[in-house]
């Protein structure tokens, strides 16, 4: 039996979008609910601070100048460690991506060393690089280096061979081919790595500052934990989380500028 009916649309769904307003609202609602639960006594604030108390703790930290003292120490470590890890990682990644011998030996090493937990190596780093900044920065460098190498190699592999052949066919110098074709071609993948390595660096910061650090957000969080200063502990966590947000925003903006050709 045939009947006339309108053809139904069948291709809805499976296409999630991100609405900024909803994301923000969710965050705000969660915090508001938390505060409400705390001030109404639904949850005990004895060992779980209220957002208000955390904010107050942040304010005190800011007013006393401690916040900046810790933040600047951490930012310096993060910046130095991340930059060194990233630059060496990209250079190694390019070598591994371009040369057979480097790839054969390097990839084996990277695969063997990448999965080891860097936190477990902190005590060794202290013996090798001292208790000061050296071991902290090396911890970060180590954590950043391997993902960068792996992403750079993947990026180099993803550069269309045709573009490299084009460069060769026009007689471009090897260095120009690397700088103008291979590196920019690998950049999207390298940037994808940045998202991972910046987060890794922040995670490792706490481990790196566990030993021998007087200042630093990681050291501060540990110290607050040792003293069961719950407000301070959570305030430190909030700072770390905001730091993560800021860094990911900066990476996103950088990506937008450098990869605007996409």
């Amino acid at each position, binding site marked *: 039996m045939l009947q006339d009916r309108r053809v139904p649309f069948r291709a809805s769904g499976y296409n999630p979008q991100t609405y900024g307003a909803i994301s923000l609202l969710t965050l705000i609602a969660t915090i508001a609910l938390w505060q409400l639960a705390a001030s109404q006594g639904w949850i005990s604030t004895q060992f779980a601070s209220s957002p208000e108390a955390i904010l107050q703790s942040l304010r005190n930290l800011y007013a006393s100048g401690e916040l900046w003292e810790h933040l600047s120490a951490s930012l310096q470590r993060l910046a130095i460690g991340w930059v060194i890890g990233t630059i060496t990682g990209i250079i190694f990644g390019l070598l591994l991506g371009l040369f057979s011998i480097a790839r054969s030996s390097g990839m084996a090493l990277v695969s063997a060393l990448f999965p080891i937990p860097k936190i477990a190596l902190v005590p060794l780093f202290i013996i090798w690089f001292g208790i000061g900044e050296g071991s902290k920065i090396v911890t970060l460098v180590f954590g950043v280096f391997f993902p960068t190498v792996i992403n750079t190699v993947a990026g180099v592999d993803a550069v269309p061979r*045709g573009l490299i052949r084009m460069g060769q*066919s026009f007689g471009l*110098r090897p260095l120009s081919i690397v700088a*103008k074709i291979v590196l920019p071609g690998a950049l999207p993948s390298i940037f994808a790595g940045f998202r991972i390595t910046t987060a890794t660096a922040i995670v490792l910061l706490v481990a790196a500052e566990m030993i021998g650090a007087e200042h630093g957000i990681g050291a501060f969080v540990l110290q607050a934990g040792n003293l069961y200063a719950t407000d301070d502990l959570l305030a430190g966590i909030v700072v770390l989380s905001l730091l993560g947000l800021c860094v990911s925003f900066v990476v996103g903006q950088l990506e937008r500028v450098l990869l605007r050709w996409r």
Partner: protein
Amino acid sequence: MSDVALDALERRGIGLSVCAVSHAYRGLKALEGIDIEIPPGEVTVVVGPSGCGKSTLLGILGGLVAQEAGEVVLHGDPGADCLNPLTYVFQDFALLPWRSVAGNVSLVLEDHAMDKAARAARVAEVLALTGLTEFADAWPRQLSGGMRQRVGIARALAVRPAVLLMDEPLSALDAQTRDLLLDEFAALIARTGVTTVYVTHNLPEAVRLGHSIVVLGRRPGRVREIIRIDMPLAERRPDDTALMAIEQRLWALLRDDAAEAARELA
């Protein structure tokens, strides 16, 4: 196509001799005993069934594939201003997506001693020649296929080539764009007189551009026949009966091989 600065691309008189060239990929014979004379200032079209080794031959001509046997010899002086005697135009355009149109052209000049102003002038000149002036700052992704291949041509012309090596430069384009661009190629080649080797599957293209048409046979690729067409490019019309006859003859030569090629695994 613009008339600017065409005189800069004057006839260069470079020819190529292909002598007993053979090539195999891991034991698979692709080309065997190829002897072709590519005369200066002419368009040599290479046709043949899929997989007969056309791209391989072009690669050997431009030094991108190391042949197993035989040699390719370049005759004549490319001239002092020639920056890259053997220059390719690619089927897939091979443009850097992270460089603008002007940047893609400029890329191939940057390794040469040339001051900034001279380079900018050269870029502007070839963009004008290919009608791309107003797209100089566009990203490749913003361009249509036809415009992208114009960038490919502009880039090739920027280095003042002695020989243009074109591997199916129009095959990625739609039929209408292809016809338009084909006429532009013909005009450009006629005016500049640059020696050209042009690989194609498309027989109308072959008779439109070729001074001589090299027909390769199926694997291993051997020269089956070389057909000459002496009519000047500027006079060739699609409905010209003589050209249509040649096209028929080419098709007759290729049909059996093509049918067989179509039956086999790619």
